[in-house]
């Protein structure tokens, strides 16, 4: 193995600047002459806008401009788009509704963007915003997901009847109904997947800049995918041609999906910059993050699982209602469909699966992909209904799962919901998890808890996810508006420094370290000599960005392929210098060697020769050493895992304490185990947060009640145990690196493990989050019903 190559637990190169506060985030950047923006947001969940009086604001000290929807219309800019067309059951197109950059006559959620005040200082902009007089005509809001598509509800978009974006389905309903009718046992569940707020540590921010001589914009923004931002803003919103719009996403402090999308604020900073001829900065505060970052999850589902007399799964039928919020966000449509229903086979051989999804608008913040995106919802459903089935059948939950697992020899395995799992060994993962968790001795741990007056429960979750998004032809056939390949460029300098330019973006994932390790492995270059460059559309090759655990499996493979091209070119030069045949040159550990001899040239010598080609004959190779590659994956990658959680419940208060979390994941080949561990820890914390503490609450009128950290409970260090983590490995079969991705696993696998453990402890199921009061009430209800019996 190369030093610090694949598999080395290298400490992150980027941590010094992050930990010492030396990162450069969007808000750290200040441009000459910069002015500040503040947004006027709707206090109403649903209202007409009868007029906007800007006069007092425009006259306020320091105010430079007040921008409304009229200015956007005047500029000829279009609305924000949804980039994924989902079809209705009858084949017709979904109804997306309009999503104006600034409100046009109507607002559709509390926080909706109404106007923007630009001033000399942030405080003056905020003061000015209070003087913008908006004449609202409040309308009755439709805030409850369950009711949103019922007749008689307020219409949120005039052209979207019954607030229904689509009624979509996957699978053979008749076959599933028949299988359920003939099943020996059918388990039914009704579930809510609670709405959560992403809460990246860094709030969103943007700086718009306009060069009137070049007629060109520059946007600094907190984006997970600057190239996608440029593409969407250019091609769809009509901000400017692509060569007149540069998007820079510098250090970004977490995204979790919420920074994939194109938001109003970014567009308006550009428009404002052109209008006033000065750079315009907007930095969101935490309250604005609650009110305007796309939220996650928010499903209600009824599901039925059929089994034969031996407990073999025969069919699964699912009906889900998915909340889209007030507008359809960039990838909102694909989350509860192609990232959800396609995962409903899980790790199991269920032969028939049918899923219907109704996506509906409500007067709430738009909902889009959040860490895991559809796959946590699928896993929560599946792992809950299987656990419930085990309860009903009196089966050990691990055994029932194992009985239904896809067997190791069945890979590649075609599921009934359109995916082909290339590799996996679910039995090995479960075995390891049972071993690490010491499942055999759970009874004694339960007894010890009972002796302390606590109720102990154990919960399982066996997840699979589809990562490495995604084969372009496949997603294209499913309605995606873009291809999902990735690209990379490797550029050496005279002195042997290796620059890796990637279209992915790192906002906490550690790309600067992991991609350097790929170079160390492939080319033998010390990681100190590798510079990873990302986040600037003027510098990096076009890429689709970072989400869906794709950066290594897709972007990393592009880098590896570019490295192969470097080796090929280097061999030509080395062969000439060593006076040998190119076919006889071997490259290993950073040196080109004539096979079977000790004659070699180091990569650095070959690179120098490429840049100072004094000894290279004309026509042998082009000078320089720079190669690029595009990589379109052949399939999704399929990380899988088994998570086992043990909780203790205080029966007097209902408080749930997590005592143990065992997470065993099969991520295929692991490049940096330290980073993988960190990703799993973070994902577990977020998943446990959703299961126990986090809940985005709207009242029936559409006001957001949990709009600050006083009311929205993020998991804290003392809510979490020391995680017990292990891995197994079945390398991905269709990328040469063998990698699968690990960014979302923790958030996907943990919620059902926690909730099943709670159910095991208290003997009944509660909805997420399992707050103390809910658990206490469930215990009281059980006591009452037991007393009645």
């Amino acid at each position: 193995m190369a030093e610090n190559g694949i598999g080395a637990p290298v400490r992150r190169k980027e941590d010094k600047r992050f930990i010492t506060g030396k990162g450069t985030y969007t808000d750290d950047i200040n441009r000459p002459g910069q002015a500040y923006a503040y947004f006027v947001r709707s206090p109403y969940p649903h209202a007409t806008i009868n007029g906007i009086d800007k006069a007092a604001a425009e006259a306020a000290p320091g105010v430079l401009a007040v921008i409304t929807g009229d200015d956007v219309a005047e500029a000829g800019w279009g609305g924000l788009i949804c980039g994924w067309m989902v079809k209705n059951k009858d084949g017709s197109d979904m109804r997306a509704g309009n999503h104006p950059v600034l409100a046009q006559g109507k607002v559709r959620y509390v926080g909706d963007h109404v106007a923007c005040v630009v001033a000399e200082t942030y405080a003056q902009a905020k003061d000015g915003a209070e003087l913008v007089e908006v004449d609202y005509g409040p309308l009755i809001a439709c805030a409850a997901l369950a009711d949103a598509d019922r007749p008689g509800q307020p219409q949120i978009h005039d052209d979207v009847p019954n607030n229904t974006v689509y009624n979509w389905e996957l699978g053979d309903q008749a076959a599933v109904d028949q299988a359920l009718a003939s099943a020996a046992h059918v388990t039914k569940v009704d579930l809510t997947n609670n709405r959560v707020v992403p809460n990246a540590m860094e709030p969103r921010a943007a700086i718009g800049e306009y060069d009137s001589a070049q007629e060109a914009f520059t946007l600094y923004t907190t984006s997970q995918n600057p190239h996608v931002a440029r593409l969407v803003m250019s091609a769809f919103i009509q901000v400017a041609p692509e060569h007149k719009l540069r998007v820079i996403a510098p250090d970004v402090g977490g995204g979790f999906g919420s920074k994939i999308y194109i938001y109003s604020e970014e567009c308006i900073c550009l428009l404002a910059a052109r209008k006033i001829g000065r750079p315009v900065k907007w930095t969101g505060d935490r309250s604005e993050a609650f009110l305007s970052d796309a939220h996650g999850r928010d499903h209600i589902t009824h599901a039925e699982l059929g089994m034969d007399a031996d407990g073999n799964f025969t069919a699964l039928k699912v009906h889900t209602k998915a909340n889209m919020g007030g507008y359809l966000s960039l990838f909102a449509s694909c989350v509860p469909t192609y990232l959800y229903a396609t995962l409903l086979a899980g790790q199991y051989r269920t032969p028939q699966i049918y899923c219907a999804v109704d996506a509906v608008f409500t007067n709430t913040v738009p909902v889009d992909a959040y860490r895991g995106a559809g796959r946590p919802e699928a896993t929560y459903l599946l792992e809950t209904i299987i656990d419930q089935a085990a309860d009903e059948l009196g089966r050990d939950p691990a055994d029932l799962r194992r009985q239904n697992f896809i067997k190791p020899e069945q890979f590649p395995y075609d599921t009934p919901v359109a995916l082909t799992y290339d590799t996996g060994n679910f039995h090995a993962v479960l075995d390891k998890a049972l071993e690490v968790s010491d499942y055999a001795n759970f009874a004694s741990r339960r007894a010890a808890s009972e002796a302390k007056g606590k109720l102990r429960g154990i919960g399982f979750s066996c997840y699979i996810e589809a990562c490495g998004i995604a084969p372009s032809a496949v997603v294209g056939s499913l309605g995606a508006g873009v291809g999902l390949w990735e690209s990379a460029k490797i550029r050496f300098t005279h002195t042997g420094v290796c620059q890796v330019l990637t279209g992915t973006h790192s906002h906490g994932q550690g790309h600067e370290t992991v991609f350097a390790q790929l170079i160390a492995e492939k080319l033998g270059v010390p990681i100190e000599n590798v510079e990873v460059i990302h986040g600037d559309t003027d510098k990096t090759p076009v890429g689709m960005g970072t989400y869906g655990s794709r950066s290594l499996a897709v972007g990393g493979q592009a880098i590896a392929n570019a490295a192969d091209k470097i080796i090929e070119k280097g061999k030509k030069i080395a062969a000439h210098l060593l006076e040998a045949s190119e076919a006889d040159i071997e490259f290993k550990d950073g040196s080109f060697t004539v096979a079977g001899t000790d004659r070699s040239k180091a990569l650095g010598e070959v690179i120098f020769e490429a840049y100072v080609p004094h000894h290279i004959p004309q026509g042998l190779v082009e000078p320089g050493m720079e190669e690029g590659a595009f990589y379109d994956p052949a399939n999704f990658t399929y990380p899988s895992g088994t998570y086992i959680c043990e909780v203790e419940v205080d029966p007097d208060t209902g408080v749930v304490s997590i005592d143990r979390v065992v997470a065993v994941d099969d991520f295929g080949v692991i490049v940096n185990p330290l980073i993988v561990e960190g990703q799993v820890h973070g994902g577990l914390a977020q998943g446990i947060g959703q299961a126990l503490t986090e809940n985005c609450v709207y009242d029936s009128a559409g006001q957001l009640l949990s709009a600050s950290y006083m009311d929205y409970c993020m998991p804290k260090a003392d809510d979490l145990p020391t995680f017990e983590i292990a891995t197994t490995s079945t390398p991905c079969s269709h990328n040469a690196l063998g990698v699968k991705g690990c960014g979302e696993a923790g958030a996907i696998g943990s919620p059902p493990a926690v909730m099943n453990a709670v159910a095991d402890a208290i003997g009944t199921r509660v909805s997420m989050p399992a707050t103390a009061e809910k658990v206490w009430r469930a215990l009281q209800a059980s006591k009452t019903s037991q007393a009645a019996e």
Partner: protein
Amino acid sequence: MYAFNVRKPGSVDLAVAALESAEDGKLLAGGQTLLPTLKQRLASPSDLIDLGEIADLKGISDEGGSIKIGAMTTHADVAGSDVVKSQIPALAYLAGHIGDPQVRNRGTIGGSIANADPAADYPAAVLGLNATVHTNQRTIAADDFFTGLFETALNDDEIVTAVSFPKPSKAGYQKFPNPASRYAVVGVMVAETGGETRVAVTGAGPSAFRWSEAESALGGNFSADALNGLAVSAADLNSDIHASADYRAHLVGVMAKRAVAAAS
């Protein structure tokens, strides 16, 4: 935040003068409620009168029968005080469980009780330990101090200078923290002081209150079992997205028992 003037008087008298001369002055005594309120533009005082530079308002002293804590003493200082830990450990425990370290390092006892947040911890200590509140004008008995939701007996120009806590023979505090904010959903201080038993509840109602039935029960038998079967009525308790009134009422009983068990 709107613009305001900051004043830093060096004495209580100067602070009162500053308050009286200001158009709409507010005392700043740690600012753990006031500053977030200002940041959200929910208040716009003309002047903030920072009590932080008045040396007389800080410090903890053992007065023999009681512990006197200056109004501007931080929660962290109370929690870490050897005097408090040895004489009224329940009070040190309470102070050490307020909010988070940032709050405990900035927030003060005077600021907390003057604000009278229904979910603050200190009101349970003031009531349960039968403290005396000293101001620049008078002394106020604990039972007279908290008058309602965010309301106290303090006059507009009255400044809390210290709080005296009689040394109890036994006291215990337990709270059920709001998992998000770590305010008290319910907090209960039980104490035996000079032959009197007190049970004070914070978090549950609009203002801290004494639970007289529990006091009577514990008066004869200071044990958790003495509280069996007792319950506060949920009728006047708070209800919000974190806890219903019913649940709060239940928690009062649980926390009271645990406070008795923890009392030392």
